């Protein structure tokens, strides 16, 4: 560092708590989840520190999902409106699915909307807009968006969703291949899976494992080994039957 008085007080990937001093001196820069008060940079929430050159930021370890444009989420229909549906997004804010965004086909005005989506149905949808007041619009006229039928839905920590998906979806496709389940991971922390009941259980168990140990490097290999050993067990079990 050019200025000897600047001191980093934490290491990259330490867990820090609100108010904790991350660095002293003007050489470091506060980014997401941190703030500067005079000479010091402090944590503005609970999280893992990352040091990128001179920039200090936090990766949240907990907290609610906040809707973001472009995210694919799994949502539940909670109300039927005049011209659309209100869906629960597993976040502080519910979203509206407008009639015109609901399907690629034409839905006539005044049609019985429950024929398309009834109360309690789940859909996968894309967030198309979020206003400053957190009014959220979702659309189903997008690739991958559909009504969810069958299978089961589990809730995971929204901060662990990137770990479950993996780089370019490597982790989730690994689970899909090993268990033969169909899996959809919503950014809002809801995961839908469908397959053989035993395989569904295994997939759920795997996802829980990733959620718990999400930050280990070489996680993909570890999960692969885990799935292989569990699959062998099930095979034996099937043969005994």
């Amino acid at each position, binding site marked *: 560092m050019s200025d000897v008085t600047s001191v980093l007080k934490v290491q990259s*990937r330490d867990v820090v708590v609100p*108010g904790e001093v991350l660095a002293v001196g003007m050489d470091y820069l506060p980014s997401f989840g941190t703030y500067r008060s005079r000479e010091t940079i402090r944590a503005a929430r*609970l999280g893992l520190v990352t040091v990128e050159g001179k920039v200090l930021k936090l990766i949240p370890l907990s907290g609610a999902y906040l809707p973001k444009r472009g995210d694919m989420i799994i949502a539940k229909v909670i109300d039927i409106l005049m011209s659309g549906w209100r869906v629960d997004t597993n976040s502080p804010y519910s979203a509206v699915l407008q009639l015109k965004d609901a399907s690629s086909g034409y839905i006539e005005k005044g049609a019985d909307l429950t024929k398309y989506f009834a109360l309690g149905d789940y859909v996968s949808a894309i967030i198309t807009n979020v206003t*400053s007041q*957190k009014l959220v619009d979702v659309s189903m006229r997008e690739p991958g968006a559909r009504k969810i039928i069958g299978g089961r839905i589990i809730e995971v920590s929204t901060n662990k969703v990137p770990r479950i998906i993996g780089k370019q979806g490597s982790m989730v496709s690994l689970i899909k291949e090993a268990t033969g389940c169909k899996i959809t991971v919503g950014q809002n922390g809801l995961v839908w899976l469908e397959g053989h009941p035993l395989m569904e259980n295994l997939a759920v168990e795997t996802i829980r494992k990733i959620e718990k*140990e999400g930050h280990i490097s070489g996680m993909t290999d570890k999960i692969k080994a885990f799935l292989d050993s569990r699959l062998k067990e099930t095979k034996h079990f099937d043969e005994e039957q």
Partner: protein
Amino acid sequence: MTYTKRFDGRKAFDEIRPISAKAGVIPRAHGSAVFTIGKTVAYAAVYGPRELHPKFLQNPKTGILRCHYNMMPFSGSGERVKPGPSRRSREISLVTEKALQPVVDLSQFPNAVVDVFIEFPQTDAGSRCAGICAASIALADAGIPMTDLVAAVSVGIVDDKVLVDLNYDEEAYEEGPVADIPVAILPSTGEFSLLQMDGEISKENLLKALKMGQKAVAQINSVQKQALKEKYAGQEADVADSNTSGGEYHDE
């Protein structure tokens, strides 16, 4: 003067009762904590941010913080505490809210609410302070953006002694003047976010008491930090051996 030493065997007048804290004790809550100071036990559970109803309570500029202080019926000295809201619990809920307000930043959550429920299975004076300590751990555990962990302790005088962290016997001392001053402090700046008083105190003694309070608060703050780090420690260890491969973090 008959009050010459602490009633519960503490060595010094600036000594606080034994403290302990644990984060994540209520699995269904978004964040939770238990904070114990002597015989006072405070549980805090945080729910939210979540939608706020009725609608007229919503603030379109920011999310709001709502605190609920409650003593359980069996939490007193053996007399049943009448359950349900009371004048006292409403006041304490309000001052707890105001003590925490300066650190939490809910501007990302307009129209939403963060609920903090604080329950006491056992009390022995200093409950509002214990409640604030538990609540700030629980809020951090819930991932709420906040600039600091508020720590609180009571200070005051008993007879002619200035002291910190009064227990019930000291608070109820009858043979001389007593002042009980709960304070909440933001450790990073030293600012006070709660200052109440029951009794009388001279200016000199007040300043002396507040100084002692600031020292005690530093101890409490380190216990709060420890509680949070312990809960998330697994992740820290796991991360340590992932240091070799960078770029494990990508946001999509």
